């Protein structure tokens, strides 16, 4: 089977996954105790208000038989008619909401993936190359501590720390360090093209990205250390050393490239942070992105919005998975998709 066929097969297999995920969302919202109409109306301590509740339920189509609602919901999603939000942003198209909330989360996720990749992996490799030295212990312990600190705790602590950072950043607090920003708030992505806009937006997102990436940073550190250790004890490394390959070339070409293979799924799985894991950090740092939007939509029973977001999340996840498989073959040509 060649790569293209494999790809097609993967895409076909994604359809049931999509169906299952969106069905689960529908079931949770419509068969659970959440009533979006009640979320809109509020207390209904009178006959009139209860009539109003019924009218809104009627408007939203909540009184139709459940299979009719389900069929309509699924047809709309799979024809990419994502509809309008009911409760959270009433009357607004979910597509335009996605377009407005998405970039902030992507910006956050991007840095949350980059920070661990550029700090965790080098540290891990460093530890692996200096195994069982004090430097290794220092790096490893740091990694374990990072891994152990929960997001919600770290976020609050970092927020408090940065607020009282007057002496930490060259005499100025974090807010006025390099460029004036507030600690809490969404980054302004409208002027990313200009150097100043880029620095501002980056600085604004860094604390949140650091928190979001902290667990992965620990993971990647530990994994890359192990991977380097494993490779470095292989026979072919000794052979390469024996034939006089320089240390730089040995590490760069023979150790690192091989050590990368187990790291790929780890890094790509960090990319899921983009979609799901950011709710808490977004809320604490006041970055109103997709995570917050999804959480609000789910708790308010906003079916069109939550359903569409779920649909998009699953699409993203499936795409990332497929990309990951393709990446394997690029890094290690021995991996193929031929049937044996």
């Amino acid at each position, binding site marked *: 089977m060649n790569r293209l066929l494999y790809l097609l097969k993967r895409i076909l297999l994604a359809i049931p996954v999509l169906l299952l995920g969106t069905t689960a969302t529908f079931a949770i919202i419509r068969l659970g*105790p*959440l*009533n*979006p109409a*009640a*979320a*809109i*109306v*509020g*207390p*209904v*301590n*009178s*006959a*009139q*208000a*209860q*009539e*109003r*509740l*019924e*009218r809104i*339920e*009627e*408007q939203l189509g909540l*009184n139709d038989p459940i299979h009719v609602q389900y069929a309509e919901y699924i047809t709309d999603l799979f024809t990419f008619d994502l509809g*309008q939000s009911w409760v*959270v*942003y*009433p*009357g*607004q*198209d979910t597509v*335009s*909401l996605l377009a*407005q*909330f998405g970039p902030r989360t992507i910006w956050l996720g991007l840095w949350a993936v980059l920070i661990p990749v550029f700090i965790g992996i080098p540290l891990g490799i460093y530890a692996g190359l200096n195994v069982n030295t004090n430097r290794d212990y220092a790096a490893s312990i740091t990694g374990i501590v990072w891994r152990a600190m929960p997001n919600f705790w770290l976020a*609050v602590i970092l*927020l*408090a720390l940065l*607020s009282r950072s007057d002496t930490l950043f060259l005499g100025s*607090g974090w*807010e006025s360090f390099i460029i*004036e920003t*507030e*600690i*809490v*708030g*969404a980054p302004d992505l409208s002027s990313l093209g200009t150097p100043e806009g880029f620095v501002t937006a980056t600085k604004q997102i860094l604390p949140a990205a650091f928190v979001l990436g902290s667990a992965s940073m620990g993971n990647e550190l530990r994994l890359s250390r192990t991977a380097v250790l494993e490779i470095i004890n292989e026979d072919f490394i000794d052979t390469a050393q024996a034939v006089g390959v320089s240390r730089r070339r040995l590490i760069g070409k023979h150790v690192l490239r091989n050590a990368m293979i187990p790291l790929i799924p780890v890094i790509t799985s960090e990319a899921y942070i983009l979609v799901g894991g950011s709710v808490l950090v977004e*809320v*604490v*740092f*006041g970055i*109103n992105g997709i995570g*917050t*939007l999804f*959480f*609000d939509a789910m*708790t*308010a029973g906003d079916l069109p919005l939550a359903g569409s977001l779920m649909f998009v999340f699953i699409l993203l996840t499936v795409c990332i998975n497929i990309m990951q498989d393709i990446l394997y073959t690029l890094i290690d040509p021995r991996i193929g998709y031929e049937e044996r």
Partner: protein
Amino acid sequence: MSEPDNDSQTGQSRRTILKSAGGVATVALAGCLGGDDDGDSGGGNGGENGSENGSENGGENGSENGTSNGSNVLSLSIPEAANFDPVRIKGDGSQIVSDHVFSELFTLPQGGLEPTAQLVTDYSVSDDGLTYTFTLRDDVTFDNGDQLTAQDFVYSWERLAASDNSQEGETILEGGFQIAHETTTETVDGEEQEVYQPGSLAVEAVDEGTLEVTLESPFYDALFWFAYGSLSPVPEGVVGDIEGYDGEMDYAEFSSQNPVGTGPYEIDSVETGTEVVVSAVDGYHGEAPGPDQISMQVVENTDAIFRRAMNRNVDVFQVPNSRFDPSKVSINETRELSQKVGTYGPLENDETANYMTWDEAYTAYFIFDCSRVEKPIRQALNYAVNQENFVEQGFRGVGEPAYHQAPPTVYPGGKEAYDQHAEENFPYGYREAQVGQAQTVMEEAGYGENSRASITLSLYNDRNPDAYSRIAELIRAKAESIYIDLEIERAPFNTIIDEAVSGNLDMYTLGNGLEYPSPQDMLKFGRPYEGNLVRWREDPSDASEQAANAWETVQNNLEPTDAAQQARSEAYIQMEEAIWQDAIYLTNYHPRGRQWWYDDVDVPVQTSGFHDRLFDGVSFE
């Protein structure tokens, strides 16, 4: 009409009550100088009483105060910003935006509850109290430049009554205040319902500047309703959601990006879910607002809001309940409607901030479903608790223990009469628990150590969850000793509502914010009628009959006369006593709004929960 939430993480509160909008805890406001220029100019203009909008000054034009050269930018944290359409039910944040962009015929002045003219120069009422004729100011323009005319009201109120987008139609179609209209029968869900007949509203534009409105029946508090947010004018034909109009813009654009009103501010920019910036209207017809620009950022998390305050990026802010220390409060002044002003400190940054609280015009209670919980159990629980403990231990001393349905500000005779009547007549122990009495009631009803009653208490977990957990524990401990096994359940607000309507709950948290300052707005729920969540009708008694009769008296005395008012006041008290007698509620507390600010800004004292949450009166020191 959700409960003002002091400590929520999610903050998706919904309330139909417009006048007490601006959730007590969810607003933090910053006074920062300088827009782009990192400025040094702090020239505060105007505004120690800016929220009045200078309506009684007729055509005075406030623009000579020069908003154009200023650079006062207020930065404000709001819990959400979604939909600003006057006819939608809004969350606290959207309401604040809406309050600044829209204005109504009348408004509540600072320090008082008597509506004063805002968009009108004059008005008259016909002898039968039915027809109101308003002469509109001729110097009012919408943010899009159009002049305000009577026809705009005809359109706006028809939208309120007939549009599919409207969720507030009952403000003019149902209840004591009704604009005359016709109905037609429609079948919804197999049941026949009377619904509004489009185009039948008795609102007429006599000429460009004269508006005539006919009510279904006379109503003493009609002027309040003309000051109510849903009745704000929008330019005729701005959206095409009622018959006869195509709309100048899409509904989504109008409601979430570009609302057009006659208020002191207009929309500058909206970044959905993140930030709304409004600017002072050039040549605003009322008093020129203090801040030239108000930048409202959406921040849901109370910790984040608090951090910004402690960093002093914000000058006006909230302290979340979890960090509130009652011993840091010192009150220097108490005003007529029980607004209190003082200081709070030291804060963790060693500053001492100014502090104010006001009556939110809200009553929080636990509702019993009378068809599921029998009277002796309801009475015993009322005996067993002391409402003071709810406030002290649950809400850290912020709020008033509740005994009546009507909050102190609107109780006939005010706070003094409220306290006196409760002290003399509350049967279940005023500011004390009477466990012995509770046991006696239970024993007389056949309960005892070996035959215990059991009920479930459902709490909402998205409004003041910590406070309610503490209170629920208090109640459970007391219930234990009076032969009641109390099981505690937690659910989101909208689930509780849904289950309550279906009649599946024994006892649950709820409350009601008043829309206009009369006990009637609270007591409309305190009588046996179809659809009442208390289901008093299913457990009839002399008391329920007394409440029904007293309500009848109220309904027969809605005219704006002193005699009618006297009759209403007496009937209100009869209803309160009937409610006590059957113990259909376990009253909890009357929350108070709170706000803190540093010395850099001068903030007008918020009068009451009925007033718009406006920041146009803030000035810079």
